[in-house]
C-alpha cells in the first residue's frame, strides 16, 4: 500500500510539472500585455516589463518561475495589484470550497435517497417520476437553474438574498441548490442502477429467503456494495465542485476562485493563471488518488499494484 501511494505521489508530481510547463508556454500565445490600463505607451510598457522581468527571454522566465514555485512563491497578481497569488487563491479557494462542499453534501444525500427509493420502486410511478426529475437535473445546466432559482425565490417571492457572500448563511442557499442538483441527479442514476443490480444478486436473494424485510435489506446489505461505483464518481465531482463554478459564482456575485480564474485569462494575468491551474490540477489529482485508495478499501477485489 505505502509503495503504491508513494508511486502515485511521484506520478502526481511529474504530472504537475508537465501541467506547469504546458500552461506556461501556452500562455505566451495570449495576446497583449498583463497591464490593465490600455493608455500605456510603448515606453511605459517597456518600463513595466523591466520591473516585472517580462523583458527577459521566455526560457529564463520559465526557470525563474520554477525556482520561485519551489520556494512557494507564485508571484504577484497584475489584476489585483499588490496581492500575492498565494493570498489571492488562499482567500478565494475557501469560498468556492465551502460552496462546493455544501452542494456536494446536499447533492449526494439527495442522490442516495432518491436512488434507493427509485430502485426499490423499480418501474412504478415513483421511479418514473424520479427518473424524469433526475434526467432533467442532469440536462439542465447549473447556471440556468441558478437564474430560475434567483428569479423565483429571490425576486418574486423575495425569500432569499439575490447576491453576495460571507455576510449571512441565507446567501449560500440558492447557489448551493443550483450546484447540488447536478450531482444529486447523477448520483440518483448511479445508485439506482447499481442497487437494482445488487438487489438481483444471489446473496440478496438469499437474504430475502431468510426473511429480511425491504429497509433492512437495503441498509445492511445493498448499500455498501452499490457504493463502490459511486466512490469513483465522487472523486472528480469533489474536485469539480471545490474549484468553483464560474457562472454560478458570477450570477450570485460570489468571490470564488472559479470566477477569478476565468477573468485572469482575458486580462492575461500570468501569475494567477499559473497559480490557479497548478492548484486545480493538484486538487483533481489528489481527489482521484484518494478515490482510488478508498475504492481499494471498500472493495477488496481491487488490488493495488
Amino acid at each position, binding site marked *: 500500500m505505502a509503495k503504491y501511494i508513494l508511486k502515485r505521489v511521484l506520478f502526481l508530481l511529474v504530472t504537475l510539472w508537465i501541467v506547469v510547463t504546458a500552461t506556461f508556454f501556452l500562455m505566451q500565445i495570449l495576446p497583449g500585455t498583463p497591464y490593465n490600463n490600455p493608455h500605456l505607451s510603448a515606453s*511605459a510598457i517597456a518600463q513595466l516589463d523591466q520591473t516585472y522581468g517580462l523583458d527577459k527571454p521566455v526560457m529564463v522566465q520559465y526557470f525563474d518561475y520554477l525556482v520561485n514555485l519551489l520556494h512557494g512563491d507564485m508571484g504577484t497578481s497584475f*489584476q489585483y495589484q*499588490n496581492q500575492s497569488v498565494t493570498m489571492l487563491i488562499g482567500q478565494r479557494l475557501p469560498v468556492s470550497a465551502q460552496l462546493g462542499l455544501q452542494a456536494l453534501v446536499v447533492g449526494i*444525500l439527495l442522490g442516495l435517497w432518491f436512488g434507493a427509493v427509485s430502485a426499490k420502486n423499480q418501474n412504478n410511478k415513483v421511479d418514473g417520476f424520479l427518473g424524469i426529475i433526475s434526467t432533467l437535473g442532469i440536462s439542465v445546466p447549473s447556471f440556468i437553474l441558478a437564474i430560475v432559482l434567483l428569479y423565483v425565490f429571490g425576486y418574486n417571492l423575495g425569500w432569499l438574498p439575490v447576491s453576495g457572500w460571507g*455576510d449571512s*448563511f441565507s446567501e449560500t442557499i440558492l447557489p448551493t441548490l443550483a450546484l447540488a442538483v447536478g450531482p444529486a441527479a447523477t448520483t440518483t442514476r448511479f445508485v439506482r442502477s447499481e442497487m437494482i443490480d445488487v438487489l438481483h444478486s444471489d446473496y440478496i436473494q438469499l437474504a430475502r429467503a431468510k426473511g429480511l424485510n425491504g429497509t433492512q435489506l437495503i441498509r445492511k446489505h445493498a448499500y455498501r456494495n452499490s457504493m463502490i461505483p459511486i466512490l469513483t464518481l465522487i472523486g472528480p465531482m469533489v474536485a469539480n465542485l471545490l474549484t468553483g463554478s464560474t457562472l454560478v459564482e458570477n450570477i450570485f456575485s460570489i*468571490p470564488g476562485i472559479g470566477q477569478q480564474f476565468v477573468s485572469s485569462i482575458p486580462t492575461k494575468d500570468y501569475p494567477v493563471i499559473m497559480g490557479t491551474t497548478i492548484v486545480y490540477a493538484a486538487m483533481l489529482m489528489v481527489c482521484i488518488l484518494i478515490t482510488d485508495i478508498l475504492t481499494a478499501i471498500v472493495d477488496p477485489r481491487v488490488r493495488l499494484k
Partner: protein
Amino acid sequence: MKQWQKWTAAAVVVLAVAGGSRAAGWWGTSPADDKSTLNYGLATDIQTLDMSKATDQYSDTILGNTEANLLRTNAKGDVVPDLAKSYSVSSDGLTYTVKLRSGLKWSDGSALTAKDFVYSWQRIVDPKTASQYSYLTSGVKNADDIVAGKKPVSDLGVKADGDTLTFTLERPMPQFKYLLSFAQFTPQKESFVKEKGSKYGTTAATQIYSGAYKFEGWNGTNSKFKMVKNDNYWDAKNVKTKTINWQVIKNPETAIKLYKQGKLDRAAITNSPEMYSANKNNKDAVTTAVASSTYLEYNQAKNPYLQNEKIRQALNLATNRKDLASQATGGSRDAAKSLVSNNLVKASNGQDLSTYVAPGYTYDKDKAKQLFAEGIKEVNKGKMNVTLETDADSPIAKNTADYLKQAYESTFGDQISVTEKIVPFKQRIQDGANGDFDILVMNWNGDYPDGSTFYDMFKATDTGMNDGQFKNQTYIDAVTKAESTDANNPSARDADWKAAEKALMDSANINPLYSWKGGFLQRSNVKGVVTNPAGLPLDLTRAYRK
C-alpha cells in the same frame, strides 16, 4: 421515518447549524429608509485600496470617497479646495503653490502633513511601484526620468515646506489642477505604508483614510462593506450621511431588481441596448457625462484603399451617426460631433467643448458614393475588401460592427466587401498597436476633463494611440500651439482644438461614431451626488437622503 431518511434530515440540520455562526442577517438587511444611510453597488470586486496601483474605476470609487486630495471637483465641474486651504499658479503656468488647511488628520487621529503628499507623489513615480498611471505625472519636473529609472525619486518637482506644497512643472499643463483632485495622488503616510508592506491596501484595515468616510468591513474578498463617516475629516460637520452600505453585484439585472426593491440607491442601465430601452423612461432614470468616445481608426500605413483620402471621406460621409446611436446602441450613446467626447468640459465661451470644436461631420450618401467611385478608380486595384475589427466585450460593439457593415455595403454596393472581425479586448489592443487591421472600432476614455487627453493621441505616430499611423501636419501644428504658446490662454487654446478637429475631418483620418454617457436609475431623494466624466465617477462626499 426510515433510518437513512433520518440521517439525511440530520445532515441538513447540521448543515444549517454549521452556517448558523454566519446567520446574523438571516433574511438579509432591510432597505434603508433611514436618512443617515445610503446604499450603493459595485459591479466588480475591489481590486486594491493602494491608490498608487489602482487601475479600475471601482477601486477608484472606493478610494475617491474615503481619501481626500488637495482639490475636489464640485457639482459644476470646477475644482475647489479640499485638503488645501488655497492654491495659486504662477503666470508662466510652471509653478503650483498649495497651502494646506491647518490641523488635518488621518482617520486614526495622527497628523496629516504636506510630507504625506510628497511621499505619495514619489511613490507613484518610483519604478519599483510599477504604477500604471505614473505617466500622468509626465510634465512634472524630472517625473519622466524618475519613471525611467534615470533619477532618484527625491529629484521629483514636488516639495514640502511646512504646510506649503510646491509643484514645479517642465511645461505648462492646464490639466494639472485635475491631478490634484485624483484618487491616485491622494496623500499616503509613509510609516503606515512601510509597516503594512505587501498587505498595504489589500483590506479595509490595511489602509488609513483622509476623506469624508472611513472604509470598513472589507476583508479582501467579501462582497458587503461600508463607508462610515470619518470624524477626523476637516469638513466632517458638513458630511450628513453616517453610513454608506456597499455590495458587489456583478449581474446588472440583479442591481436593477434591487434598486426597484428599494435596496439600492443607484443602478446602471447601460449594460446592453435592450436594458437601456427598457429603463430609459423610468422616472428615476438619469444620464451622466462620461469622457469616452468611440471612433473608427483607418489603417493609413498599410492599407492602400485607406491611404486614399477620397475613400476615407466616402466612408465618413456614409456613416449616419444619429441612426447608428439609436439603432446599434439603443440610444445608450449619443451621436459623435467630434473626436472629443460630449460634456467633457466647458470651453472658455461657456459652450460644451465638443459643441464648440465640432467641425460638422455630416451624412451624405450621394456624395459618399461619388467620392468612393473616384477613390476606387485612383487606387486601381478593383473591389475593396476590408476587415472591420472590434472587441467582443459588449453587445454594443457587435451591433456597431453589424450596422457599419450593412451601411457601407448598401451604400457602395459591389464595390466593397466588409468582413467583421470580433476579437477579445487584449487582441484588439495588440492588433491596433501592431497595425494588423484595416478598420478598427476604438474606444478612448479620457484621463482628465481637458481636450489634451484626446488630442495628444494623434500628435505623433509614436504616441501608442495613433494606430492608423497618420501624420496630419495641420493637426500637429494646432495641438503643438495649444500646448506651448497658447497653454496659458484658454480661449486661444480652445481655438487650437477647434482647428485640430477641422484638420482631422478635412483629411478624414478617423471617423467619430458616438460619445458615451452613463445611464442610471437614481433615487430622487438622494441629493448632493457628484459625478465626473473623468476622474472620480461617483462622489458621495456631500450626498445625503432628504
